[in-house]
């Protein structure tokens, strides 16, 4: 009831403004600038204009945020886009509470990433093109979240997909390029097909009751006209699209490939743009998903499964960016888990906090890679703590945040998700349990990454060691700002702020065990990582006395390693190998490439038809004529 009330209120208050258009327009101008003038005006101009454009749209976003009416929205209708008969689609942008949060994150984090890039790409020869992509990425994402209708959302949707494809293909060497690009592209197109089919089905279903519209507010007004079983199909189709963009099982495979791009781009993809599109879309269409508990439970299950499996894969990766990539997949799983149990607020909350600390993690990783002369393998790092202090401390804060250490942003959002997973009418103890184990693994692998990278002895070659240096200010300042955001992000009153859309937030009532266990498990994971990667070699005795539960297991290095190997590593390596190699390589690659092969085989078969002989063509005519006449005969 409350929800419905809030909805009505949101619709009643739409303020018409005309400045929202500048939010995506500025980055778009940046794209044009970079394409046409970038090379001529040189690196300095590019370095100023590209982040500057994003900063301008950040300012406009702030303005929109301050002027957002209580419980209402801002609408900027630019022109009538598509118009025919009864169908009208406006080229219109809107800012409501959800969009306001999204644009602030996209432009804010995006701006920091742009600034960081000026330092990171200082030695690249084609910086204009790089910033053109980065600006285009930002502009598309802004269009996606600002769009007032599904079609405009789709414009941004395709835009970010296209950008990711350009970047993936652009940075690969020729050999890998073909298959990686192909994979990313096909996966994204599968998702897009799902999205479009869902869109048309929704369009048609509403049309049955004579409402031909794609505008979110109008759809919401007439949502009652959609029967529940049709809603399920629409929601599932749209979820296929969301899973493609937001890298959920089984469509997550493209995301690790996107690691091939420069690290700041990864940060942009993982934190602020692209992967959050699916979450945003489902949150935006919450009124539609509310019609179908079946679809929601699919979303929740897929989310929980992805959160868990991606975490297991993260445990064994040694490439610093791959660890972060799988961690993104896993965290997105949490967000879908939240959406699936109807806790939209919690999901969006986690989206925001994740944006801060994941951007920070990637930029920190970039700083490490930068300092380590483009080395990405963590087994060849170590001991960077003293050599790159700013990077270390900010990275440390990010790890604390993602591990869910109390007081930091990640703690609040993840905790809320898990509580909702347990307590919500759509939730279940199973979802909570899977999520909690995943949280433990997250803490473990993040700190494993931290310890192996920054602690102990440096294992790199002397030449690389010699060059290790802290990054320039253009890179460390964004790191520091993001670190602050990662700490305080949890204290923003987002839950209340979003209430006009998702209803007033109520703290779920759960038993203390349920409430605190995830945090304990998370801390346990950190402790385990600490023990295994820092303490273990030197102070095994102390451990044995201090940690009674583990003392036997950790008594002796060999013994620990054996246990680690037998209990944790082997099953998990086995599982993740199975998941990663078998599932990923055979099932996903197999079906994707198989589909491509089938297509090509069919294409070759059809080519036989085209054998060049004009008389075979005439025969084809004859067969066609016969068939049509046969149709009438019949």
């Amino acid at each position, binding site marked *: 009831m409350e929800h419905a009330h809030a909805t009505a209120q949101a619709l009643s208050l739409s303020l018409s403004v005309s400045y929202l258009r500048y939010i995506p327009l500025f980055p778009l101008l940046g794209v044009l600038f970079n394409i046409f003038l970038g090379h001529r005006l040189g690196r300095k101009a590019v370095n100023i204009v590209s982040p500057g454009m994003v900063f301008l749209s950040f300012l406009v976003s702030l303005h929109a945020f301050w002027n957002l009416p209580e419980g209402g929205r801002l609408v900027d209708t630019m022109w009538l886009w598509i118009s025919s008969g009864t169908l009208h689609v406006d080229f219109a942008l809107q800012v409501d509470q959800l969009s306001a949060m999204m644009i602030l994150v996209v432009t804010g984090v995006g701006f920091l990433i742009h600034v960081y890039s000026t330092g990171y790409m200082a030695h690249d020869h084609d910086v204009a093109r790089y910033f053109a992509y980065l600006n285009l990425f930002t502009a598309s994402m802004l269009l996606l979240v600002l769009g007032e209708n599904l079609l405009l959302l789709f414009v941004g949707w395709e835009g970010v997909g296209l950008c990711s494809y350009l970047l993936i293909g652009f940075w690969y060497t020729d050999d890998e390029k073909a298959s990686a690009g192909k994979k990313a592209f096909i996966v994204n197109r599968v998702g897009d097909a799902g999205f479009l089919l869902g869109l048309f089905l929704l369009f048609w279903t509403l049309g049955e009751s004579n409402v031909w519209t794609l505008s979110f507010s109008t759809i919401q007004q007439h949502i009652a006209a959609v029967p529940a079983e049709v809603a399920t199909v629409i929601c599932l189709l749209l979820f296929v699209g969301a899973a493609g963009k937001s890298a959920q099982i089984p469509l997550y495979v493209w995301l690790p490939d996107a690691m091939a791009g420069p690290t700041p781009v990864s940060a942009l993809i993982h934190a602020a743009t692209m992967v959050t599109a699916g979450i945003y879309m489902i949150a935006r269409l919450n009124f539609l998903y509310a019609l179908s508990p079946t679809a929601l439970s699919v979303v929740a299950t897929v989310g929980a499964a992805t959160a868990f499996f991606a975490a297991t894969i993260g445990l064994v990766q040694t490439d610093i960016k791959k660890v972060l990539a799988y961690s993104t997949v896993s965290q997105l799983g949490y967000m879908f888990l939240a959406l699936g149990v109807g806790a939209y607020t919690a999901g969006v909350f986690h989206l925001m906090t994740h944006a801060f600390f994941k951007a920070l993690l990637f930029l920190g990783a970039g700083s490490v890679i930068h300092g380590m002369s483009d080395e990405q393998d963590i087994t060849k790092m170590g001991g960077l703590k003293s050599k790159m202090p700013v990077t270390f401390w900010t990275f440390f804060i990010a790890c604390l945040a993602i591990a869910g250490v109390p007081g930091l942003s990640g703690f609040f959002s993840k905790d809320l998700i898990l509580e909702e997973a347990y307590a919500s009418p759509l939730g279940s103890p199973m979802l909570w349990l899977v999520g909690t184990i995943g949280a433990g693994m997250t803490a473990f692998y993040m700190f494993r990454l931290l310890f192996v990278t920054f602690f102990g002895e440096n294992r790199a070659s002397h030449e690389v060691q010699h060059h290790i240096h802290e990054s320039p200010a253009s890179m460390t300042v964004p790191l520091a700002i993001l670190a602050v955001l990662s700490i305080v992000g949890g204290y923003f009153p987002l839950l209340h702020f979003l209430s006009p859309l998702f209803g007033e937030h109520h703290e779920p009532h759960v038993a203390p065990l349920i409430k605190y266990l995830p945090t304990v498990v998370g801390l346990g994971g950190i402790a385990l990582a600490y023990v295994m990667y820092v303490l273990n070699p030197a102070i095994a005795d102390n451990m044995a006395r201090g940690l009674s539960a583990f003392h036997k297991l950790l008594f002796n290095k060999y013994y620990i390693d054996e246990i680690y190997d037998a209990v944790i590593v082997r099953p998990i390596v086995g599982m993740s190998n199975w998941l990663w190699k078998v599932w990923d390589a055979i099932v996903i690659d197999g079906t994707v490439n198989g589909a491509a092969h089938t297509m090509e085989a069919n294409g070759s078969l059809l080519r036989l038809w085209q054998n060049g002989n004009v008389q075979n063509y005439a025969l*084809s005519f004859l067969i066609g004529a016969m068939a049509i006449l046969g149709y009438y005969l019949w």
Partner: protein
Amino acid sequence: MIKLPPVNWLSLLPAIIPAFTGILVLCWDLGMKNEERHRLAWLGILGLAITAVVSFCLLGRNEPAFNGSYTLDSYAMFFNLIFCLAGILTFLMSIQYLHTSDIHAGEYYALILFAIVGMVVMAAATDLVNIFLGLETMSIAVYVLAGIWRQRLQSNEAALKYFLLGAFASGFLLYGIALLYGATGSIQLGKIAMHVNEHGASTILLIGVAMLIVGFGFKVAAAPFHVWTPDVYEGAPTTITAFMAVGVKAAAFAAFARVFLHTLGGIHGQWEGILWVLAVLTMTVGNITALVQNNVKRMLAYSSIAHAGYLLVAMVAGKELGGAALMYYLVAYGLMNLGAFGVIIAVGRRGEPNEEFADFAGLGFRYPLLALAMTVFMLSLTGIPPLVGFVGKFYIFSAAVKAGYLWLAVIGVLNSVISAYYYIRVIVSMYMHEGDKVPEKLSARPALAVAILIAAVGTIWLGVFPSASMALSRLSFLALG
């Protein structure tokens, strides 16, 4: 003494202007030096521009002429604009293309103009004889144009294949006309429509409809009558391929849609099933076969088959929305396709056509603007918003959805998903592979650059601001009555 009927000159004007321009071109050509012959193209462009302006001014006038065998309506005028667009862009591209070939300019330009006369007649014809004669006028001119590069074996072969199959298909079309005449007692579309609405469909009429579908199916390249398309498109001079892919197809659809959506609209149920199957077959065959092509020109030929499939979806959807979507999509398709062929011409050089995918490698680094234009065309053909191809596809599929053909829209969406694969391959080649092919500087070929620019700007502009042209296409289709 026979009393001549009153002549409605106004209705004939869009046909007379290109015809006279063509004759002027032929005459002027006689006393001209070879290096001056580009002036003929400018004369042709002038003629077509005047035709376009006249057609545009005549939009909104809907009056029958010559006892109802010819008409002056917005529908025809809208198509005239498409023909003029196709013709003007073809001329602009030809100025350079003729330098790289051995084609004699005079007859070449004149024949394009005469073909446009045929198209204009087809779009305005409201009786079956005029449709047939318009179609033959256009076709015979295009048969010659396909083979006009006499020294090139592919061009020879393309002309022969196109001619034989075209004449073969004309036989079917004519048979259909005969049976329609036999079944209804008239060759005028208006009277046939009245007869059909009153009496429904007799067996003879249905055989006639079947034969008409074969004949028109050939011209619009609908499967299984599409088989000639790749060979002819590949073999014909590239400018002519572009002209065929856009102009000829638009003209064929003009007559096809007028006859089926208007005249035979009363027996919609009798033919929509067939066109449904043809649409699905056409989209699928076109897209899947395009996947395995290595020649960009040939890939575009298959892609044009696939696009004929989308256009057939609009035909099946029918009614006001489907018809308007058909007309809008023809404009969209025309712009992006002409542009794509323009880029192919730009990449080619004398003696080396450079039409393979590999020949596009590295274009993005050396000719960023040319590659950017090609990217725009490919993305638009894929249906990436907010380019015109997306808006057109959305228009067609929503028309299909609205008319209740949900599955047709689903198949169409899936098909356009597949199509992305081969369009993006061009972009991949341009930006992600190293190549050593160095085309002539585009800045040295201003007319071609202008043609590509017009197409690119149109592709973007009509995608972002489509509503005016959509309204125009809708009003023009409604003029069909």
